[in-house]
């Protein structure tokens, strides 16, 4: 009800300008995100896991630039089932441990190529579990990173092509090699 009231209080000017929701205005006033699910110290780790999955490339910044750790934290808190909350929390502990054992160092202390190597192996393991219809914890992290990044402003407008108001539909639109996918 509060949200509905908050939303309906915002007037809309037809087609002119982009509506800024009150939550964004608030977050501008309070730039420091309040961590609600993971440990504060885990946010940089989540950012780097995200960046390893979707790193900076020539066309667009990586997941870290979108504050993917904060997104994951809020999403897990508010949108995950209690079972998946446990799974991802335990998963993060497992990931830390496994990394130390297999790579000999904390994930954050590894150079980028070693992080990549470690997560490629973890992803392979997760894919095997998928075939057996089991959800590996790494899938939860990866799906969150993909969702959070490609629906972020950087992901949607730089890594993809974002058309808020296409204005028309064309059924036969040329596609040159290198053309990006639409964001929606």
């Amino acid at each position: 009800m509060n949200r509905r009231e908050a939303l309906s209080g915002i007037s809309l000017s037809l087609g002119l300008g982009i509506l800024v929701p009150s939550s964004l205005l608030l977050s501008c006033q309070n730039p420091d995100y309040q961590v609600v699910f993971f440990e504060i110290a885990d946010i940089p780790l989540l950012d780097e896991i995200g960046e390893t999955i979707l790193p900076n490339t020539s066309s667009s910044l990586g997941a870290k630039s979108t504050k993917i750790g904060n997104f994951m934290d809020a999403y897990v808190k508010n949108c995950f089932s209690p079972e998946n909350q446990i799974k991802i929390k335990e998963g993060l502990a497992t990931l830390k441990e496994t990394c130390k054992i297999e790579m000999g160092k904390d994930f954050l202390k590894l150079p980028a190529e070693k992080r990549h190597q470690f997560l490629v192996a973890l992803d392979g393991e997760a894919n095997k579990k998928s075939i057996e219809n089991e959800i590996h914890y790494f899938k939860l992290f990866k799906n969150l990173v993909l969702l959070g990044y490609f629906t972020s402003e950087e992901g949607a407008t730089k890594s993809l092509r974002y058309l808020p108001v296409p204005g028309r539909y064309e059924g036969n639109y040329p596609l040159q090699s290198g053309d990006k996918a639409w964001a929606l």
Partner: protein
Amino acid sequence: MSSYKNIERTNTNTFDAIVIGSGISGSWAAKELCEKGLKTLVLERGRDVKHGNYPTAMMNPWDFEHRNRLTYQFKQENPVASRCYALDDSTKHFFVKDSEHPYIQEKPYDWIRGYQVGGKSLIWARQTQRWSKYEFENPSKYGYTIKWPIGYNDLADWYSHVEKFVGISGNKDGLETLPDSESLPAWEMNEAEKAMSKAIMKQYPNRPAVIGRCAHLTQPQPIHLEQGRGQCQARNLCYRGCPYGAYFSANASTLPWAAKTGNLTLRPDSVVHSILYDDELQKAVGVKVIDRLTKEEHYFFAKIIFANAACLNTNLILLNSKSNRFPNGLGNDNGLLGKYVAFHNYRGSLTADYDGQLDTYYYGRRPTSIMIPNFRNVQRQDADFQGGYMTFFTADRRGWGRAVEGEQIGAAFKEQLSKPGNWSIYMMMQGETIPKATNHVRLSENEVDEWGIPQLITSIDYDENDEKLFQDFLKEGEAMLKAAGCTNIKKHDSKQSPGLDIHEMGGVRMGDDPRTSLLNKWNQLHAVPNVFVTDGACMTSTGVQNPSLTFMAITARAANYAAEQVKKNVLS
């Protein structure tokens, strides 16, 4: 029960006509009645929503904290509403929350509702096909329902009447099974859909695949500009409400048009308790309303009453309208009120890959799909089940959720995901279900809602015929996708409960015989001719098309008849 008789009739509580409900059919009744000069009161149980007051309409995906996904808590609190495909974080303010409006599911039934001015016209799927003569004639011809009291020819001019005002995009396809509308330019098929349609029609000449017809202004005409509506921008964010007024909603179109006549009074927050029947005058005289917020009782009076509360709520109001003359609900002499409720069978879908056309793409987001009109039991009974189904399909290029070649994380992975994937095909059914006395709604004898109105019990389920029709769709869908050159074809059973189709129809069906139906050919209750029912509740059978356009045409026809009868003093 007779307390209303002491209430003085004033010009604030007395009108020529009362319309219960402000959605697709109610707003059409209001428009027609107001244009004919009748002082009309529209009662809406929900809050007011003014056109343009669509708070999420211009928001970007990243403006939503959870990127437009629902929270776990919302889904837990609203299991029924959350199952609706159109409900997400950007649209949830236009859907009824489960806990606020309880009902009793004797059999699992997902009742999706929109309680606000405009009703579900803000959140409908906007696909608008005319019924053909087959939908009107075949149900009684093949013996699975009573005869419709009207046919295609009774409705054709009324289809034209509403189509010109609403604005329907589509081609003139010249199909007997899908009559042409008065249409605006059609949306285009993309190249994959064109190639697939051609291949399907080559193998199945009696299965034309045509671009869908929908209530979107592809090229606004003067009548639409006069309504203040503009061209569709191909955003496909329609369920948030359209700031351009490009798709038809009561809010953007019929309600403001009715208001311009000066004859409309719109009263939001007015929960209709019952229609008042006067045993001495032998007619309905008005309605009893409970204010949504204050819970105060109000009475309003009129010469004629249109019930357009949406199918199941219209049933509920009539069942709750009890008098000495009608102890079992208004007009319910034959005991059939609330029975013969039917719906559309959406259980089946197929997904597939399409490997060609990789050098083509599309621009913009189209609000319709490809339609294949019904080809089962059309000219003759040719299947081992009754009724038919329409088929819909779309081709889209896969997005960032797909797997790609090589490593599934890292820079190369990201670069590949930034490009369109191959074509992915989605095909779905819209199947007719057979109206049966056993599929019914009735009032609870013990449970009431927050406004003291009995809760509705839904007792509606699939049957063996639905199962056979569903299996036939999966078989034929697979065959058509194969003919179209698709690979990796997979069949799906959503196992969804009835109701999630949001195409509930019947309970107050039309017919010529008062022993077997509730409404006559002008949608008047046989036993109470100044009460008209023109929403989904009036439907004798379900057809295979999306039903809203037919509700609008039936409503316009009945409203014009009603206005004439008032002018002639036949109804007074």
